[in-house]
C-alpha cells in the first residue's frame, strides 16, 4: 500500500481534532482514533510502493514505514499520557498533523519539495508553542520559533534548488557546493535547536507543553535531517569535492551541541529544560552525521534518527507524567518522588539505559560510528563517550527521588493503583433454595454492572498509575529501538527505490557528477561488504563504484 492512506487519515483526523478544540474530550478522542488508524496504515506501507500525484512522486521505503509506525505508536502513547497527566489543549491535533507532514516530507524523493513540506509541518507546532492562555510569554516564544523555522526553511529551499539542475561550469566550482552544503547543514542545526542555535528551542522548551516537545524538537526536525542526509548523499557527496572547511564547521556545531547540551541539561532544575537540552545534545549526533560525506554515514545517520526520536519521546513522556502526578516540574520540589511513583522510577532507569547504552548495543555502536567518521580521532573518542556523562543527569534525578518525600510529593497522586469504594454487599433474604439461587444470579449480574459503572471513576482515580504504565511501555519501546530491534538497522541501511537525479545529470561525458558516483538505487547498501578502507572516505579519491 502507498503512503496516501496514512496522509489522508492524518490530515482528516488532525484537522477535525483542531476544529473541535473547544470540546477537549472529543478533540482528544478524534486524535487518538486517528493515531490508531495511522498505526495500521503505517504498518501496511510498502517499501517499494509509489504513486504519482500532480506530477510529484510519493515513494515508500522501509525507513519511512518504520518512522511512520513508530511515530504513530509514540504519538498515541504521548497523547494517552497527556490525557492521564495534564491534558493540554490542542496537543493531540498538532501531534497528528505534525506527524502527517513529516511523513509527507519523507515520502517525497525530491529534497527541494520535501523541505517545503517539512517546514509547513513545523508551523503546526506554533499552535502549541504559542498558547493564547499564556499570552505574554507565548507571543515571544512563538515569534522566535517562527523566525527559526523561516530561516531554516529558506536556507534549505535555496540550497536544494541551487544544485538540483545541470550545473555546467558551476560543477567545477567547489565553493558553490560548499555554500549550499553549509546552508543546509546550518538549517538542520537551527531546526534541531542545536547549540549555538538553541535560544529559540530553550524558550520553546520552557513554554510549550511537555508532551509536544518531542514533536517540535525531535520528530519534525528528524524528518528535516533525513531529507538533508538524502540530499547530501545524492547531490554533494558523490562529487568528492574538497569541502574540509564546511565539514569542519558542521562537525564543530554537532560536537559542541553534544557536549554542551549534556552540561546544560545537568545544571537545570526544570524537568522540561532538562528534556530540551538532552534533545539538543542528542541532536548533535544527527548534525555530526551530516558532516560525513561518504556512504558510510548513511546507515548510522538514519539509525540514530530513529533511536533519538523514540528515546527522547520516552524521556519527555516521563517528565509529563511526573508533572501531572505531583503538579511541579522543579527538581528541588520533587524530593522522594521514587517512593511515591516506583513505576516511574523503573521507567527512568530503562530510559537512561536506552539513552546511554553500552558497548555492543546498537545505540552505542551508532554513536561511535558517527563520531569516528565525522571527527578526528581524539575528539571523536571524547564525543563518542560524552553521553556517558548523562548518567550524572539521570543519577541526579533518581537521587533526589530517593530522598525523604517533600510536601509537594506527599500531596501528589503517586502511582499505586486504587479502586473506588465498592457498593456494600447485598444481604441474602430468600428462604428457599430456588429463591436463593435466583437471588445469587441477580446479585452477580448487578455486581457486574456495578463494576462496569465504576470503571470511569476508577480510571480517573488511577490516572497516575495508567500514565506510569504508558511511560514504562514507551521506555521499553525506546530500549528495543536502541538495541536495534524492530529492524531499525536494516531499515536504515536500505536505499529508497526512487532517488532524485543530482546536478550532474546532463553534464559533459567524463565529468564527475552525482549521478555517476551514486550508489545504484535499486539495491540496498551492501552492509556485509565493508567499505574498501577503514578510514573515513578520502575526499580526494572517487567513489568505489568509479574504480
Amino acid at each position, binding site marked *: 500500500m502507498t503512503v496516501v492512506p496514512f496522509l489522508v487519515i492524518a490530515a482528516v483526523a488532525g484537522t477535525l481534532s483542531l476544529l473541535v478544540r473547544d470540546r477537549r474530550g472529543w478533540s482528544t478522542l478524534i486524535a487518538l482514533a486517528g493515531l490508531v488508524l495511522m498505526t495500521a496504515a503505517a504498518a501496511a506501507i510498502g517499501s517499494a510502493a509509489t504513486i504519482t500525484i500532480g506530477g510529484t512522486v510519493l515513494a515508500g521505503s522501509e525507513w519511512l514505514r518504520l518512522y511512520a509506525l513508530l511515530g504513530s505508536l509514540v504519538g498515541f502513547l504521548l497523547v494517552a499520557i497527556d490525557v492521564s497527566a495534564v491534558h493540554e489543549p490542542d496537543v493531540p491535533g498538532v501531534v497528528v498533523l505534525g506527524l502527517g507532514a513529516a511523513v509527507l516530507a519523507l515520502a517525497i524523493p525530491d529534497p527541494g519539495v520535501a523541505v517545503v513540506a517539512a517546514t509547513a509541518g513545523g508551523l503546526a507546532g506554533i499552535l502549541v508553542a504559542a498558547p493564547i492562555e499564556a499570552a505574554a510569554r507565548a*507571543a515571544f516564544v512563538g515569534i522566535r520559533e517562527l523566525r527559526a523555522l523561516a530561516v531554516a526553511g529558506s536556507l534549505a*529551499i535555496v540550497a536544494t534548488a541551487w544544485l538540483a539542475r545541470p550545473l555546467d561550469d558551476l560543477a567545477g566550482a567547489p565553493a558553490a557546493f560548499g555554500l549550499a552544503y553549509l546552508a543546509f547543514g546550518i538549517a538542520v542545526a537551527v531546526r534541531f535547536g542545536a547549540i549555538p542555535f538553541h535560544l529559540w528551542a530553550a524558550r520553546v522548551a520552557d513554554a510549550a507543553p511537555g508532551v509536544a516537545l518531542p514533536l517540535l524538537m525531535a520528530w519534525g526536525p528528524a524528518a528535516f535531517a533525513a531529507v538533508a542526509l538524502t540530499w547530501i548523499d545524492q547531490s554533494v557527496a558523490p562529487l568528492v569535492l574538497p569541502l574540509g572547511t564546511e565539514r569542519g564547521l558542521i562537525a564543530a556545531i554537532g560536537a559542541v551541541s553534544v557536549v554542551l547540551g549534556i552540561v546544560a541539561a545537568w545544571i537545570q532544575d526544570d524537568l522540561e529544560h532538562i528534556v530540551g537540552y538532552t534533545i539538543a545534545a542528542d541532536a548533535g549526533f544527527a548534525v555530526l552525521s551530516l558532516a560525513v560525506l561518504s556512504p558510510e554515514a548513511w546507515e548510522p545517520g538514519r539509525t540514530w534518527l530513529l533511536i533519538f526520536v523514540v528515546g527522547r519521546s520516552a524521556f519527555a513522556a516521563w517528565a509529563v507524567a511526573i508533572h501531572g502526578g505531583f503538579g511541579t516540574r522543579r527538581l528541588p520540589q520533587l524530593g522522594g518522588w521514587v517512593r511515591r511513583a516506583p513505576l516511574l522510577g523503573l521507567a527512568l532507569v530503562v530510559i537512561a539505559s536506552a539513552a546511554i547504552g553500552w558497548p555492543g548495543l546498537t545505540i552505542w555502536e551508532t554513536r561511535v560510528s558517527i563520531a569516528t567518521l565525522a571527527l578526528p580521532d581524539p575528539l571523536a573518542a571524547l564525543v563518542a563517550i560524552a553521553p556517558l556523562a548523562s548518567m550524572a543527569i539521570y543519577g541526579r534525578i533518581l537521587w533526589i527521588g530517593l530522598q525523604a518525600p517533600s510536601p509537594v510529593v506527599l500531596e501528589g497522586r503517586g502511582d499505586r493503583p486504587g479502586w473506588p469504594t465498592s457498593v456494600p454487599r447485598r444481604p441474602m433474604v430468600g428462604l428457599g433454595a430456588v429463591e436463593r439461587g435466583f437471588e445469587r444470579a441477580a446479585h452477580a449480574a448487578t455486581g457486574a454492572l456495578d463494576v462496569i459503572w465504576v470503571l470511569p471513576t476508577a480510571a480517573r482515580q488511577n490516572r497516575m498509575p495508567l500514565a506510569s504504565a504508558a511511560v514504562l511501555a514507551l521506555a521499553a519501546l525506546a530500549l528495543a529501538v536502541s538495541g536495534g530491534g524492530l529492524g531499525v538497522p536494516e531499515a536504515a541501511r536500505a536505499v529508497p527505490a526512487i532517488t532524485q537525479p543530482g546536478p550532474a545529470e546532463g553534464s559533459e561525458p567524463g565529468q564527475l557528477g552525482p549521478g555517476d558516483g551514486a550508489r545504484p538505487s535499486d539495491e540496498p547498501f551492501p552492509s556485509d561488504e565493508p567499505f574498501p578502507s577503514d578510514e573515513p572516505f578520502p575526499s580526494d579519491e572517487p567513489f568505489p563504484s568509479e574504480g
Partner: protein
Amino acid sequence: MNPALAALAAVTIGGAVLAVAARDVRSAVVGLLVVLVGAPLIADPWPTPLSILVRIAAALLATRFLVIALRGDLAGTGTRIGWPTEVLIGAAAGLVGYGSHGLGAVGLGAAEAQAAGFGLAALAIAPLITGRDVLRIGIGAILLLVAASLVRSGLDGPLTDAEQLIGAMLTIGLGGAVAVISIAARSAGGLEPIDLKALERGRRTPDAHRASGSRRAPEAGRTREPGRTGRRP
C-alpha cells in the same frame, strides 16, 4: 524579458514594500495578500488554472486569518527607514536577482521569479532582525519563505501541481501561525512581544558599579519625598 512577468514581479515587490513599510495593519495585510497572490504567478509557463485557484484560495485564507487576529484599532511599528528606502532596496535587490539569474549556471525558470525572490528576501531582512512587533517579524518570516520559493522557481523551473498544493499548505500555515502569535500578543496588551527574562534583567540593580546618588536604583517600597524631583522631568 517577459513584460508581463516583469510587471508581476514589480507588483509583488511593491506589495512587499507596502507590507513592511505600513504602520496601518490593514495596509500591511493587503500588501501581504498582493505578495501571496502574485508570487506563484511569476513562472514561465504559468501554473495550471487549478493550481492558480488553489494558490489564490490559500492566500485569501492566510490573510483572512490575519484579518481575524488583527481586528480593532491597531498600529504596527512600520519601517524606520521610510518607504522610499524600502522601494530602493527592493528594486536594487530585484535587479541583482535578474542579473544573476541561474546563480552561475543556466536557470531553468523565469529570471523575473529570481528577481522578485531577491527583492522579497532583501525586504524581509530588516523586519526579521530588527522587528519589534510580532506582525512585522511575522511578515518578515513570510516574505523570506516566499522569496526562497521564488528563487527556487527561478532556478529549477515551474512547480508541478502537487508542489503548488504543498506551497499552498505552507502559505496557509504561515498565515495561521502569524495570526495565532498576534492573538497571543494582543491578549498581553499589544503587538509587541514581551521577553519576561529581559524585563527581569532590566530591573536588576547595577552591582558592577559603585552606587552613586544619581545612579542608585530606588529601594523597594521607598516613596519619593514631597517636593523632590528626579534628574529628568
